[in-house]
Each structure stands twice: as structure tokens, then as C-alpha cells.
């Protein structure tokens, strides 16, 4: 016989049935203050993204004012690379599309886009587009549909989608579609819920969701839900809180969020809270981190939790922030 279903069991802990808002806020607050922590040091190479996760998590639970805005904006601006127009993840590191999106998300969140030279960023992003429509992450030429999303989301947030070839971007993303309706890293790569989110999000930004076979993709996505209620990112993989975001947001963009069991997923996410330290982990009983804390909260927001602000499906920022920008994108309703 084949392999048994890979899954986890939820701990029977009533204290986790409540959303520990104050604990999560203090977890994030301490994480950002505790700069001598080993994990904090070892993750320096993605600092700007880390800051974005922390800030968005805090804003979603209405605690943004507990973060040091001046210090953060100073730091992010010090990561701007004047030569290329991209953002570095941290001082001394190389600029990259991944951190350019995070930096722009932070600036948008703080309504501080005026601090930057938009045109420089737009030029950085548009130069990374390749003749086949794909995007490389930086000068070393790695292609990935994540970078397509970073580029298109950055430009959309800056109101400058015109700076790249949208038709070709769409063509490249379409070429990454697979037999199961999902999308992979590059043409030929296996479907992965994270990449699905990047591709579906990109197509929503380009208003080209017509490319997707929504019923086929929706089926594959709803099959990510396991008996524990959690979602995995690919068949036969363990559930993980961050996929609550990648899978749920993708399902919502294509108008099929009700194809999974929301209640059971909520229970799974709640069980990944740490009631001692605050924060969420990938699975119950694991170590928490800001990445899973953001996506746990964002997932709960999509599931309709009223204690958390509404989150924008495409840009993963609070919905009120995106509404301020009056961005234009497409969602499937039928």
C-alpha cells in the first residue's frame, strides 16, 4: 500500500482557542527590539522583508504604533541602493527584487512613498525584465515566478505598471502552468502553492485571470486541506501556517475560498499560536517566527476573524492601506 497521509494532530489545548492578540503584539515588538538575538542575526540577509512581516502583522492587529516608525524608515532608506535603484535586504547586502517589494510595501504602509525617488525604483524593476517576459531577481540572472510577482506588485503599488511589457509578463507566467492547473518556479517546474499565489496575484494585477482554469486550479488548491484542517503547499506534504495565506489568498482571488473548510482551518491556525511567547509557528509545537505570525494573522483575517483588520488579497497589506491607493486589479467572481 502507499504512504499514509502526512499530517499532524492538533493539541487539545483550550487556551489556544482564543486569539492571543496582546501576546502576538508583544512577541513582534520584542523580536524587532532584540537585535542581539542569534536568529535575528542569522536572518539579517532578509531584514527588510522581516520588517515588512512585523509591521504588517502589527498593523493588522491595530498595534502599529508600538513600532519605531522613524528608526524603521531610516533603516529602510539606508538600504536603498542609489546606483541601481533597488533595495538591499540589509546594509552591505546586494539589492534584489524581493527586498525592493518589501521596502515599497513598508513605505506604502507608512504612507511615506514621497521619501523615495520612484523613477529610480521603476527603472531598477523594469531593467530586470527579460525578452521572454520573465523577471530576474538581480544581476545574477535567476528567473523565478516569485520575481514576476515582486516586479508587478512593486510597479502596481507605485502606479507604474506601464514600465514593463505586461503581455509578455503574462505569456511567461502562462508558460509556467502545469497539468494540475497550478504554477511552478520556471517553465517545467512542479506546482507549488507559493508560486501559485505569485502567478495568480500577478495575473490579477495584469487583469488577465482569463489565463487560469479556475475550476481545475481551485480543485488542486482545495485538496491542500488535510484532516487536521491545515493546508499544505503540495500533495503529500505537511500542513504549514504560511500556506493558509498562499492557498487561501489564491482561492479568494479566483472566487473559491468556500471550497475549503474554514472552521477547521481556523482551528489549525489557532493551534499554532505559542501561548508563552506569543507568535505563530509553521505547525503546532514548533518555534514561532514573524513570517508565520504575519501569515497566520492574515489567514485568520481572510477567514473572517473580526479581531483582525481586513487584509488585501494581492498585496498582503491592510485593506485600508490599499484602498488609500485606489489600485486597479481583477478578482474572479464566477
Amino acid at each position: 500500500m502507499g504512504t499514509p497521509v502526512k499530517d499532524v494532530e492538533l493539541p487539545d489545548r483550550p487556551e489556544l482557542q482564543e486569539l492571543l492578540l496582546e501576546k502576538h503584539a508583544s512577541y513582534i515588538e520584542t523580536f524587532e527590539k532584540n537585535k542581539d538575538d542569534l536568529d535575528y542575526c542569522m536572518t539579517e540577509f532578509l531584514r527588510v522583508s522581516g520588517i515588512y512581516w512585523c509591521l504588517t502583522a502589527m498593523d493588522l492587529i491595530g498595534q502599529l504604533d508600538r513600532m519605531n516608525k522613524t528608526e524603521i524608515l531610516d533603516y529602510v532608506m539606508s538600504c536603498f541602493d542609489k546606483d541601481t535603484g533597488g533595495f538591499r535586504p540589509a546594509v552591505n547586502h546586494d539589492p534584489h527584487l524581493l527586498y525592493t517589494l518589501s521596502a515599497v510595501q513598508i513605505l506604502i504602509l507608512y504612507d511615506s512613498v514621497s521619501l523615495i525617488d520612484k523613477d529610480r525604483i521603476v527603472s531598477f524593476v523594469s531593467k530586470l525584465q527579460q525578452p521572454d517576459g520573465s523577471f530576474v531577481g538581480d544581476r545574477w540572472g535567476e528567473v523565478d515566478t516569485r520575481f514576476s510577482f515582486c516586479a508587478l506588485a512593486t510597479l502596481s503599488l507605485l502606479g507604474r505598471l506601464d514600465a514593463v511589457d505586461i503581455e509578455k509578463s503574462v505569456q511567461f507566467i502562462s508558460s509556467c502552468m502545469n497539468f494540475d492547473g497550478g504554477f511552478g518556479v520556471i517553465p517545467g517546474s512542479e506546482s507549488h502553492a507559493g508560486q501559485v499565489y505569485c502567478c495568480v496575484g500577478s495575473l490579477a494585477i495584469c487583469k488577465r485571470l482569463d489565463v487560469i482554469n479556475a475550476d481545475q486550479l481551485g480543485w488542486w488548491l482545495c485538496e491542500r486541506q488535510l484532516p487536521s484542517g491545515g493546508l499544505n503547499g503540495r500533495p503529500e506534504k505537511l500542513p504549514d501556517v504560511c500556506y493558509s495565506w498562499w492557498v487561501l489568498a489564491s482561492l479568494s482571488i479566483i472566487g473559491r475560498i468556500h471550497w475549503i473548510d474554514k472552521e477547521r482551518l481556523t482551528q489549525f491556525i489557532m493551534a499554532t499560536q505559542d501561548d508563552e511567547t506569543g507568535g505563530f509557528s509553521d505547525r503546532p509545537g514548533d518555534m514561532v517566527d514573524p513570517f508565520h505570525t504575519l501569515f497566520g494573522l492574515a489567514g485568520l483575517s481572510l477567514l473572517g476573524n473580526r479581531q483582525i483588520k481586513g487584509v488585501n488579497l494581492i498585496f498582503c497589506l491592510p485593506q485600508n492601506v490599499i484602498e488609500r491607493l485606489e489600485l486597479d486589479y481583477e478578482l474572479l467572481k464566477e
Partner: protein
Amino acid sequence: MHGRLKVRSTAEQEEARRREKEKKVLWYREKNESIFAKRAAGEKDRDTLKLTEEVLLENSDVGTLWSYRREILTELLPTCSQEDSETMCKTELNILERCLRVNPKAYCVWLHRRWVLEHSPAPQWAHEKQLCDLFLNHDERNFHCWDYRRYVIRKAGIPPSDEFKYSFDKIATNFSNHSAWHYRSKLLPLLHPSHSSSNGIDENAMKKEYELAQNAFYTDPSDQSAWFYHKWLLGRGTRGTMIGCVLVRRDPAPFIAVSFNQNVKSTEEEPIIVTLGDALPKPVTDSGRFESLWWSCDLVFPKDEEVTVRIEKGDGVLVEMSLDKGSNSSLWLTPDLDLLFSTYLTAATSEVLDSELVMCRELLQLEPDNKWCLLTTLQLLEAIDYDKHHKEIIDLYDKLVKCDPLRRGYYNDLRSRHLIAVKLRRRLEERRESPDINSFDLSQLNLSRLYFTQHMVFIEDLLLNGNKLNSTHSLEGLKNLKSLQSLSLADNQLITLPKTLGGLTNLKSLSLENNDIKELEDFDTLRSLPELKELNIRGNPVCQLSDCEPFVKKMLPNIKLIH
């Protein structure tokens, strides 16, 4: 961070760990500082390679350090002898392999490996393939390694047939290896192309794949990968664009609506073109919309005259009809009603559908509750003849909801779509015979969502009472009902009024009896309905509010309120 279990420890252990961590932080910072100082000074030497190696072996995710190494190697390699540069590349590959053993999912490590091979004087592709074999034996699902493998195979010029065999071996080892099934789906069209078959794959090759999937089903019928693959073999269920109906109306305002079998866009490259009478063809582009019903009130019909209407979209979609002198409206219906609603497994011939159905039925004898087999069986039945097998299909949906309750939302939607298809096809056939039919009964069907409403654009009277419609998205389709005058949503599970109701500007009578509407403000949506004369809200929690009646009456002064 993934899969790091939180472990309990004593205060002593905790303190020892804390000190160790503190030391490591100092070490890590010191190393990084000296590396970045060297980089700022433009140093590109072997010492720096050594220094970055130390840090990367501890933390291989730091992309910038790999970039620095590439900068150094770019400088050093051209100045070395052939032998020396080969040794340098070999060293580099060794370091990479050590990093991959600890961190096999690091994007920047795999990227660096490619770079090294691209810059090696003598890249050993055979060795790289072995490395992939090794890593995929260790973790058969590592998609970084699978991608790297495809790169190596291309570079090494290894024929796809070898890799097809490899994918088979991987599947034979473990039928759940989705990565290997995926690889197969990419290789099959390359290896067995065909110009005559509908999906571009040779039919004999397809037959073997059906057999392989069947073997997998019999080994473990709950392995999803083989079922996804099987669905792909049968085809995606998409077809070309076709028009269901065209409604043309003179009064109260000139109106034309065209329903399509799927969402369409009217783009500059492929616009919807409308030609009225002798007027010039008018391409209507509206790239923002992606919907299955296209409609317009912008057209001007000649008064009291017969007018011919021509609709075109892309190749082969064409409708010609006329609106007679003296008549107010005209409805064109496709002669292929069957095609309009049937699901279509693009790649499968009817013999294949039949034989796969036999296979599924046999498997169901052994595994009566296997959801994959239940779903495949009913999809085959739908594709073969959804009308004839209607009852069995509904039974299968009901069973699926019981066997796999997590996805009941998915099955309920598919079930609703099937039911509406069956009912609507019959109704449209009746309408073809009797042009005065403008009502449609979809009551008491446990519908969870509306489908095919674009083809109901002419319906004036719709019964949706006694279903399980509960949310805004389940009623999204209401927006297509441009002729609707009377609507019953009684005995559903509505908590709030869908905004789409506000667009039904011809609506005269609306029943919301026995729902779960709680807020008076919800009725605000109905203010945009100038014709609304009768509103039934009896049996909703909102009726308990003391100010319910005056509030609604003030908001909608001209209606008869039943509460």
C-alpha cells in the same frame, strides 16, 4: 523557519545555550564585518574565499556572500592555469555540496552551483546528474533539485526518453511522488507528439499512461497524484467560445445581451462586433470586463422597423438574427444546447470515456467510499451524458459530501452546476417551442451557488426558494438577470443582502421570507430598484426590531411590505 520543534529544557541548559548563542552572534558579526570591509575595499583574493566559506557553511542562505564569491572567482579564474581553475571550481562544488546537505532547499546555493558549472573549464555533467539522483533519493520531492536536474539534463544533452524512464522508476518506487508524475506530464508530449489527436499526444502512448494510472489506483486508491494525472489525461474540460443566447429588446430602452459559455473579454485583438441592420460593424472593446454575459444599452435601433442583428467574436462565433417590425423583443438560442452545458474532457474519445468508466466502476466495487474514484466516475458520467445519468450523478455528489466533508463547498458547487445545467437545458428547449415562456423554477434543489445565469438573461420570473444560498458570492450570478421582474429567495440562508440585487432594475417583486437577515441597513441596496412594488421580509431576525417597519417604509416609501 520551518520544522523547528520547540523543546523544553532546564534553567541550566537554557543558560548554557544562551551563552553559546551569544558567542555565536559575536563570531558571526565579526566575520561578516571583516568580509564586508574587504568587499568595500575591493579585495578579491583567496583569503576572502576562505572567509566567506566559513560563514556560508554556517548560514548558506546569505545570497550576497555567494555573489561576492562569484565576483572573486570572476576575477581569479581567468588568471589561473587550466588546472588551477579546475581545482578552484571543484573546491567550489565541494563547498556547495556540503551546504546542500545541510540546507537542500537554499535557492542561492543551487543558483551558485549553476554559475560555477557555467564558468568551469570542464563541467562534469554526468557527475551533476549523479548528484541529482542522490539528492532525489534522499528527498524525492525537493523541487529545487528537480529544477536543477532539468537544467543538467538539458546541458548534458540527455534524451527525454531516459528521463521518461527515470520518472517511471520514481513512480514505481512510490506512486505518491507528485513530482515524478508532474515530470511525466512534461515529457509525454515531447516524446509522443501527434498532430491528429486533440491534445497533441499519440493515442497509443496515452493508452499506456491510462494503464499506469490504473496501476497506481489499484496499489493505493487514495494517492491523489495519479488521479490528478488521470484527469489531465482525460483533458481539462475547456472548449472554444460559443454563444448561448442573444436577447434584443426595444423597450423600455434599447438593449442587447449576448451570453457565452465561458467568461470572455472583448479586446482590441478579438473584439465583440455588433452589426445592426445596414449600419457599419461596431467593434465593442471593453478590456476591463471578463464575464460570461456581455450586454449594452448604447445601441440605437431604428424605430418600428425590422432590424437584423449580427454578433461576431473571434473565429467561428457568429449569430445572425432579426427583431421583427412591431415586436418588442427577440431571443436567439443556440441550436447546440447540448454542447452549451456538457462538460467536455477534451483529450478523451468516447471509447476512452467508456473504458475508464468501466475501470472506475470496478474499483468502486472494492473501494465504495474512495472519494477520488467517486469524483472521477461522476465526471466521466457528466462527460458521457449528463442528462441521461442525472440521477446517478446527484447520488454520487451526495455521497462525496459525506465521504469528504472538508471539501463539501466544492462538491456542492459542482452539484449545483450540474442541477442547473439539467434544468436550464430543458427549460431552454421548452422556450424554443413557446416564446412566451419567461419563468424558471429552481426551487427546493439545495443549490449552494448560481451557475449559467448568463443564459437566463431573458427570464422574468425566477424561483430560488428553498435552497442553501447563503452569501454574496453564491448569488453573484444574479447580476446577469437583466429581465428579472419577480424573484423569490425565500427559505435560504441569507445573512445579508447581496449588492448584486441592486442591479436588477426591472425587479417588481422580491421575497426574502425566512432568511437570516439581521441588519436594517441592508435594505439600502434596494433603493436603486425603481420598479419595486412588493417586498416580503417575513421570518427574518430583522423583523423583531421595533423600528423595522417604519425604517423600511421610510427607505422604500412606495412598496408593499410583508413582514
